[in-house]
Every structure is written in C-alpha cells, then in structure tokens.
C-alpha cells in the first residue's frame, strides 16, 4: 500500500480514462439523478466531492440485469461467455465496494461474473460526510474504503487528495502521472479521521437493536405479517440492493432454436419459491419479507461472508413504495417489547 499526493481528482480520472473504458456516476444534463455512465468529455466531478450515491450500486457491471448464458441453434450449443475489454469503475463508494467484495464470494464459481470482474479495476472514494439515509459505519462498510476493497482509493485531505494504491494493478495505472509520494503519516492521519466522519452519522440505534432482535428471533410473526401486507412485490429493494444476487433463467425462442437468458429475480415475488406442484414454502408475503431481512442481517450469513448482507447504503428505503425499507423496518422492530 502506497500513498501519493494528487492536486485535482479530474486529472487522475482523465488519465485513467485514456487507458481503459471508464464509468463513473454522473448527472444527466439538467437532472439531479446520479447514474453510472461512461465518462463523457468535460464532465465536472461535482458528484465525486459530494456524499452522493448513484441510483444503482455498481453490481450490474458484473452481474447484469439480463445476460445470455448460451445459445442453441437446433444442432449445437454455443458458448456466450463475455470477453469484456478492460474497464475502470471510478468513484465507487465504500458501501458499494464492500458489496462487490461480498458478491465476489457469492459468484466465485460463476464464469460470467468473473470474466467481467477480472477485467475491471476499482477506484474507490472515501466519504467525508454522511449521505442521506446511509448508515455504513453501523455495518462496518464505511465511510472510508476498507483495505483490499479497491485498486485505488481517493481520499480528500484539505484542498488536496491522498491517493492510495491497494494493488499493484492499481499502482500501474498511475504510470505517467508523476505523482509525489505523500508525507509519511498521511495514511495513519486518514485512519484517525474516519471515526470523526462516522460520528457525524445520525443515530442508528434502531438498526443495532433490530439486528439483535432478528438474530434472537424476537420479531413476532404478526409484525412480519403487517409489514408483508405493505410489500407490493415491486422488486425495487432487491434490484437496487448492492448485495442482492438472486437470478432466474428462462429460454427465449430465437430463429431455429433458443437462447437461455438469466435475469435478476426478487425473493419478494410471490412465485419466487413456488414449486412445480403449486406448493409454495413462502406463500405469505410476511414470510418473504422476513426472509429478505434475515438474509441482510443474520449472523448465519456473517459467518460465511465475514459481514452482513447489508452495507448500509439505504437505497431500499428510498425506492420502497410500501414504506418497508431498512429504516422503516428496523424502527418498527426496535419499537416492539
């Protein structure tokens, strides 16, 4: 791990974009919506300096909404493994980086995911202020980028940037920038600063209490049922959740054969677990809502992944039409007893 000094973050970004395709969160013209887009010319880096999350996490770069798994033309099967050109995701927040690390484990054996993932370098950015609805410190997912989660990390220090290389591939990207090494102690200064940023986050006592109660199975079935009644099965939470990875596959007829496509699924859909016989082990919406939050906050999964399935981004709260995103749910759970 080495640290460099950087005067302007745009300089780094443009340097990287000259080497590989680069995607970064950007505002569409005249809009306040922040989306992952290819870097266009003269894009100001305003989005980078503010604590703003893009609408989507970065997961669709590796696990796209829809992808063809193979094709069959009536006689032969054709492999459709992706062969992506090298790319860079620039300005990934710590919560989303932790989620990528989580999915790296989940999709360890998945050649489609791994092909894209291996072609990608990640440039993370430390959040210097809480974002609206975010609670990454509570689930050990931020606000600063964790070690080993990115190839490069950008950290604002005063009017300048500290640029930390976490991998040799990351450091190789910096060739030609002629950066000065940062003063000794700048990395430990960064470490000391993180608790100060974390302290600015609003209280997440409801999340902490909620996690305890979910793990001690203290949430009454009636509460899950009441919250299940509010689930409109829209799939918004699972689509935007950076760690959600459920998919289904189906065959699309094409000329002389078919192609198998896999697409994002949602465990909140009624028929997610419906069996061919019609039997459905999670027929009640309350059971499905319970299962979703169990996957996000259970110690069982903590053992497997080394962290919770929630990285504290708060996107589910913003997109849930039924008012059962993470804050709403955890407040109700923490209010029982």
């Amino acid at each position, binding site marked *: 791990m080495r640290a460099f000094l950087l005067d302007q973050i745009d300089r780094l970004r443009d340097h990287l974009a000259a080497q590989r395709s680069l995607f970064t969160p950007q505002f569409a013209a005249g809009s306040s919506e922040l*989306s992952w887009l290819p870097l266009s010319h003269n894009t100001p880096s305003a989005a980078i300096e503010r604590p703003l999350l893009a*609408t989507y996490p970065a997961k669709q770069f590796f696990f796209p909404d829809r992808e063809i798994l193979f094709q069959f033309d009536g006689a032969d099967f054709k492999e459709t493994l992706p062969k992506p*050109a090298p790319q860079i995701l620039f300005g990934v927040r710590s919560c989303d980086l932790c989620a990528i690390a989580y999915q790296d484990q989940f999709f360890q054996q998945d050649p489609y995911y791994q092909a894209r993932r291996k*072609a990608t370098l990640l440039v993370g950015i430390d959040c210097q202020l809480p974002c609206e609805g975010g609670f990454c410190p509570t689930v050990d997912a931020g606000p600063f980028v964790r070690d080993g989660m990115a190839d490069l990390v950008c950290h604002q220090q005063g009017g300048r940037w500290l640029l930390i290389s976490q991998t040799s591939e990351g450091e190789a990207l910096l060739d030609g920038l002629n950066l000065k090494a940062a003063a000794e102690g700048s990395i430990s200064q960064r470490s000391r600063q993180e608790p100060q940023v974390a302290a600015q986050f609003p209280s997440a006592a409801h999340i902490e209490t909620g996690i305890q109660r979910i793990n001690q199975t203290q949430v009454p079935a009636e509460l899950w049922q009441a919250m299940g*009644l509010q689930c*409109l099965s829209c799939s918004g939470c699972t689509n935007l959740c950076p760690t959600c990875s459920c998919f289904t596959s189906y065959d699309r007829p094409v000329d002389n054969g078919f192609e198998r496509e896999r697409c994002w699924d949602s465990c909140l859909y009624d028929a997610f677990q419906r069996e061919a016989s019609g039997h459905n082990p999670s027929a009640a919406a309350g059971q499905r809502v319970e299962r979703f939050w169990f996957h996000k906050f259970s110690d069982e999964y903590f053992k497997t992944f080394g962290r919770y399935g929630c990285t504290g981004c708060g996107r589910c709260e913003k997109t849930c039409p039924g008012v059962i995103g993470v804050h709403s749910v955890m407040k109700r759970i923490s209010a029982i007893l």
Partner: protein
Amino acid sequence: MTADASAHNISRIIQTICPFCGVGCGIGLRVEQEKITGVEPLASHPVSQGKLCAKGWSTAYAVDPIDRITTPLIRENGSFRPASWDEAYQVITEAFLAAAAEKGADAVGVIACARATNEDCYAAQKFARAVLGTNNIDHCARICHSPSVAGLRQTLGSGAMTNSIDDIEKADLIVIFGCDPTENHSVLGGRIIGAKMAGARLLVVDPRLTRLARMADLHLQLQLGTNIALINGLLQIIFANGWEATEFLSSRCENETALRAKVAEYPPERVAAITGVPEEKLIAAARMYAKAERALLTYGMGITQYTTGTNNVISISNLALVAGQIGREGTGINPLRGQNNVQGACDMGALPNVFPGYQEVAQQTNRDKFADHWQKKLPENKGLTSLGMTKGALSGEVRCMLIMGEDPVVTDPDQHHVQRALEALDLLVVIELVMTETAAMADVILPAAAFSEKAGTFTNCERRVQLIQPAIAAPGEAKPDWQILGELASRLGYHHMDWPNAEAIFNEIAALSPLYQGMSYPKLAENHGLQWPCNEQAPNGTPLLHRQQFSRGKGRLIPVSHADPAEVPDEAYPLFFTTTRLHYHYGCGSMTRKSPLLERETPSGILFINPADAQALAIKPQTKVRISSRRGEVETGAIITDEVPPGTVAMPYHFKEAPSNRLTNTAQDPVTKMPELKACAVRVTNLEVEHK
C-alpha cells in the same frame, strides 16, 4: 476504447415516463448497444419520488425487440405476409373509400389508444373527423372512466381528478372507493400506505377484502352493485345528524332540497339490507367523512363499470359536495385513471362527442372553429362509441375499422360478440407493436413505434402533461402512430396532417385546446410536466381544481336511485361474478406478459373464490373449474381466498387463455354506453368432480 458486445456497457440513460397506468411515474431507460436493458427510478420525479412498481421495473421486457411487428403485414390465404407501406396504404384507402362510397362516411370508424401519446390520439381523432368525415372515434376510456367524464361534467363541470397526487399526504382521511391502488396504481397506492403510516385514517369501500381494506380503520364490505344505496345512506345519516357542510352547501352548491328528499328514502336499516353493511358501520363512516378536516376520496372501476356507472359517479360527487370535501388541498374527488394516457386520450377528443379539450361536437361554433383550423368541413352526425362500432359491424352498418394499439378481443365484454363483429368487417386495420388477439384478426397490420422509440406527451391521472423521449430507434419499419395516420391522410388527399415532428402536433393541440393553451415542450421539460388547465390565468398549471367555484359555476347535487345490476344471481347462475386486475399485469397483457418474471407471477388458475363457496362445490386450491354465464364459458383453476366475499367470484381480465370477457355482460350505462364489467351472474362447476 470500446468493449466487447457481451460486456456490460451503458451508453446512456434517457429520462421519460413509465408506460403503465395513469400514475405517470418518472423512469430512466438504460440503453446499452442500442438496446433497452433496464430502468432506473427517478428520485427527482414529483409523482414517483424514486419508486416504481413491478410493471415499471419490467419495462425493458415490455418493449423488447423479440416478437415485435417490424413491417406492414397483409392477410393472404389465412396468414400474414410482409408488405410495403405503399401496398398496405393502397389496400386500406381502397377499402375505406369503397365503404364510404357505398354506405356513407359513418360506415368507417377509428379506435384510438389510451396507451399512445396525446399526439397520436390527436392525430387519430383528426383523421376520423377531417379525413374520414365521421365522428366514429372512441377508445378504451369507454370501458374505464367514461362515466367519470360524463358524471363529473354534470355535477362539477370537469371530469378529471380534482386534486393532485401530492394531496394524499395532506389529507387526514383517505377514502378508497371501489379500487385497490396498491395493485393497479402501486406507486400511488404506496403513497396512501405512507400517509397511513404517518397517521392518516383509511376508509375503504369495496366488496373485496383488498390490501388497503386489511389496513383500513374502517372497511365497508358492500354487496356488488350497491354503491348508490350506500352513498344515499351515508348522505341520509349526514343530513339527519346535521353533519353537512352548511355554509359550503349554501354558497357553492345547488339543488340541495331535491337531494335531501331523495336520500330520505334511504334510512340506515334499508341501506343495511340492500348493501349488507351493518348500520353502525354506515354511521361511523358517515361521521368519519363528514367530520374529517380534509378527506380525500379516490375511486376506480368499482364505481364506473356498472350500468349505473354515471349515477354512481354522481353519487360520489353528491357525497363530497354535501360534506364540503372538495375545492381544498387534501380533499377532492379523484378518479384513478387506468392507462398511462387515458386522461390524455380523452383530453384529445378521441371520443365521439367532443373535440380536443372537451369542446362539444354538437355545438356549431366548435365545429366551425375546428373546420376553420383543419380546413375541412366537419361531420355533424353523432359518432358511435367503441361498443357501438362493434354492434354496427355486426349489423353491417360499419364496414371498415382502424384500431390503434387496443385489444378489444381480450378487453371488451362478451368476447364472442366482439370476434363475430370484427370478422364481419370488410377491412380491419390494426396498428400494433406485437401480435395481439385483435391484430391476429386484422386484414392489414401496421407496425407501430413503442413509447421508448418516439417523442410525445402522456397526461397522467392528476392532469399532469409529461414529455416522453425516444431512447432508441424503432425496430424495422415501425413508426409513430401519428406519422402512419398522417401518411394515410395524404393518400386520401388531406395534407394538414403532415407534421414534421410530435412537437408540431403538440403546438396545434395547445392552439386549439384551452386546457393545454399555455403549454409547450420547453415548458413541460422545465417543470416535470404541467397540470391542466394551463393558460394565461394559470401559466404554471393548476394542481387544484374548483378552488373558488366549480368549472360549471355551482356544484350541482343530483338525486339518483339505487338500481340492481342488469344481471343478478338466480337459480341457473347462482354466483355474482366480478372482474379485477393483478399488480403484475396491465390491460390485455401484451406488454407485461413479455417479462419472464411477471409471467411467472401469473397464477396457474385465476378464479378467485371464497372458502365457503369453494367448500360447497368441493373445490380445493387449483381444482379445475368451469365458469359459465349466459354469454359463454371459461375453464381455469381455482384460488381459494377470503379476498372475495361468499357468493361472489372474481377473475382478472388480462389473460387470453382464460378470458373473463367471455362471461361478462354487454348491458350498458344508458348515458355513456359503459358495459357492466363489474357484475354479472355465473355458475361454477367443479370439473374434477364431474370427471369422477
């Protein structure tokens, strides 16, 4: 550097409006390699605020290039063959001209589309009136909210939502009458859930135990088809207790005496007997509504799809006026429009009796105004409604029809009747995205551009006119409906429809319709849309109607009487039958059923039956059943649920394999010709018992 085609490679996000339902959510279409691969919700959108429903999230599938019609098709020897536009236009113009020459201009008709843009619908009605010379122009508002338009015009002077979606959070009581917005208008339904969580009370009036009914403070589970009796009963209680808004009634309403006399015939004990709702619940509901600080009332097809549809709407209006729950923020009468642009299709005059902006065709001054602008003498004859055209086709009176993006074979009542009618035509032209059941009956099919492939505007249920943007090019030779109609008009010798783009049509609309007068594409873009009326007096639009006075002046109270549905259960057909919608699907299913996820969500059987009725017929979950009515029969599997009350069974109408409209009744509301889709009588047979 460019990535390989198999890499994830976002190239742009186009912000537009969701194509499902009248809520009008903001949606970003993600484009990769010139394909729409996904959607992004828009946090800045005033209606959807970063949320979408299952249908909205599946938009990429709905407009997937797979299964799209990409060239004109002509029927030949029982199947379709690709044809050039020239040849297709030739066939159409010859047949339309021949029919008109033989039987007059009214021998042809046009069905516009509530899924198409305002510009498309405007073009459709102009094509019918100025080119074909007939007022035979209608669309599916006929079978959803035509009674709202007719009823509220009589009582208030304007047939649209009086308030805005934002008013949901301003109300302290929300009344949900004959609809389940969490299923059909989910994002709006979600805002109702949010208001409830924040402390608003909910009063639900519905024969079904819907999601919101389960969450409600009070649920009046009335018998199918007893809306008027129930509302007259509530009004009787309100007057009897002196809970009416005295000052509001005397200063803003007329005809109070007549209404008082009528509702006096509906004391609680009589109303309880008709509706099945206990007296104490009626009294509690009347008190809740009349005494609320701000009560917002919203309603849906459970009010309109009856032979008493217009009177049902008038009843709703009576209730809001007497309680003074209108003309203020957080109150109002708010019909939930079903399709993304059904409000706009009505605004555009895709109706037989009105020009754009609800300007009556019957008035000479209006005909002169439009004739002058369109440079064509316009027909005076009363136009036929959509069901009127179906009937006309059967009787031989209507010879050719052009149907734009609608699927009456699945969505209209009495399917056999519709199919026979369409078969009887000399020529059926269908403009479509995919091969619907109706398109499959056509003689000529013209390929249309989808919402994601064209510019234009949609008007949502709160009268908000919003811009849509093309994200990608249309597949093959498909093009926007307005362009197709303009080219057909040219072939027929009319050259005032050769617009260069959609914006030119919108400017023509704004020039001719006072409601849209102050709008333009740049102004719509700046404001996330504008709510009509938008004019010199209201340059930024009008979120709240009827603030100082009603559009017609005084609010008119109109006494109406309870009447039973045209068909009620009897010995031969002992169960009430009603039609519903599922959250996952939209209309005829031609868009939503392209999503593998939404299609999976379709239950394998779709007859919803109460446990008591199921037990009596030895029906178990998924037992194969036959449902028969006087019109036809359908076979499907049963779903046993307390969502429907004993004695009433329900079926969603989206599925061509089990079309509920084989059973429904064509009996109609005398004012609007709205068919009674919400109530008829059926018999359910357990096929598994029969087989044993």
